């Protein structure tokens, strides 16, 4: 067999998509809060080969972490599998999420649109504004 030369996929990694979206978030919170993408080694939620968690953290509450979403992919990169925070899901899809229900998005664009909707959800805004307030409350800060 004669092999033609393989080209690397041009698909953008979902973690890169999220990292691009979260740029500027910390600044918008006065550098108090931050969104971080972490590798999930346990991989139990999306059942994919590569798994990441998107976490909201506070610089003033050392151990606080709120899981906005878990997302993962296999070697094909897309579709990407996403497990959203339940209340973000309920709000976006206007129905009750089954525990750890997986959403699949076939393209980078579809994934980006979903994440933008998640960041614009009332639930996300409520957690961020609540956490901002608590992060400035002296008796609650670690």
């Amino acid at each position: 067999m004669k092999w033609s030369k393989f080209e690397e996929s041009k698909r953008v990694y979902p973690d890169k998509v999220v990292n691009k979206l979260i740029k500027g978030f910390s600044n918008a919170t006065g550098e108090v809060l931050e969104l971080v993408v972490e590798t999930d080694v346990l991989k139990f939620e999306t059942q994919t080969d590569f798994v990441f968690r998107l976490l909201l953290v506070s610089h003033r509450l050392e151990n606080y972490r709120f899981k906005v979403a878990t997302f993962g992919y296999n070697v094909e990169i897309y579709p990407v599998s996403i497990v959203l925070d339940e209340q973000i899901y309920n709000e976006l899809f206007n129905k009750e999420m089954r525990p750890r229900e997986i959403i699949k998005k076939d393209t980078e664009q579809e994934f980006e649109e979903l994440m933008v909707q998640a960041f614009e959800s009332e639930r996300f805004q409520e957690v961020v504004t609540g956490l901002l307030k608590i992060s400035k409350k002296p008796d609650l800060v670690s």
Partner: protein
Amino acid sequence: MKLIYWNTNNIQRLDEIRDILTCYKPDILFLSEIDKTLLESNSSLNKTGYLYFPNPGCNRVSIIKKTDIDIHLGLQTNYYTFINFPKFKTSVISVHLPSQMFQHLDGLKAFIRGFRYEIDENVGNPLENKIIVIGDFNVNPFERPMIDFDGFSATNTVNSKFQKRHLGKQRAFYYNPTWKLYADNHFPGTKYYARPSASSYDVLEHHYLDQVVISIKLLEESKSEKIETIKSTATYNFFSIKQNKVLVSDHLPLSYTINI
């Protein structure tokens, strides 16, 4: 350390909660099915020496703590709230897991397996870390989501190897003191629910959906423990002996004290 968990079934006032705090004096009271705005807007808790401790990100469990104790928030998800209790170097996790009214037991087991993974990842191995999990698991202590190797792996005994290997995988256990409560055979549960499967096939009517499990490290360092359901306070009855029925809410509050 004393912890109380209560699923209030959307109680609309704080009177019973204040009475629990006054009579039982827990370090932390965890509440589910409670309107957070009721807790936020009511300063009368402060007079009892307690305050509402907001935990944004977790809507299914709220925290009330003694004013003078120091706790820190950890991982928050809709179903559970992680906190650190530095005084006891212990991680406390309170849960209100998905209801068995809407989920298949296998689905709950998958969820609880994932929850256990999340504890292992965020807090660590139960053989090396002091951990308490308290709350509404929505399954009984004897059901497979709690006892299976690939469930929560919570045993009913203090005499165990506390870890096992199965098909190449190592698993450390938790100890579930809730089993002690089965000595009460008049109302062996925190909730009465006649037929979970919606058929007369089910025989059990009383359920310990509210439970406490502790890590082996904590068990080893403990001097004594006490687990009990709260059936009354100075002013209120949460249980009618005459009717053999839960009052106020559809769950009894669960209290757990451990001396380290």
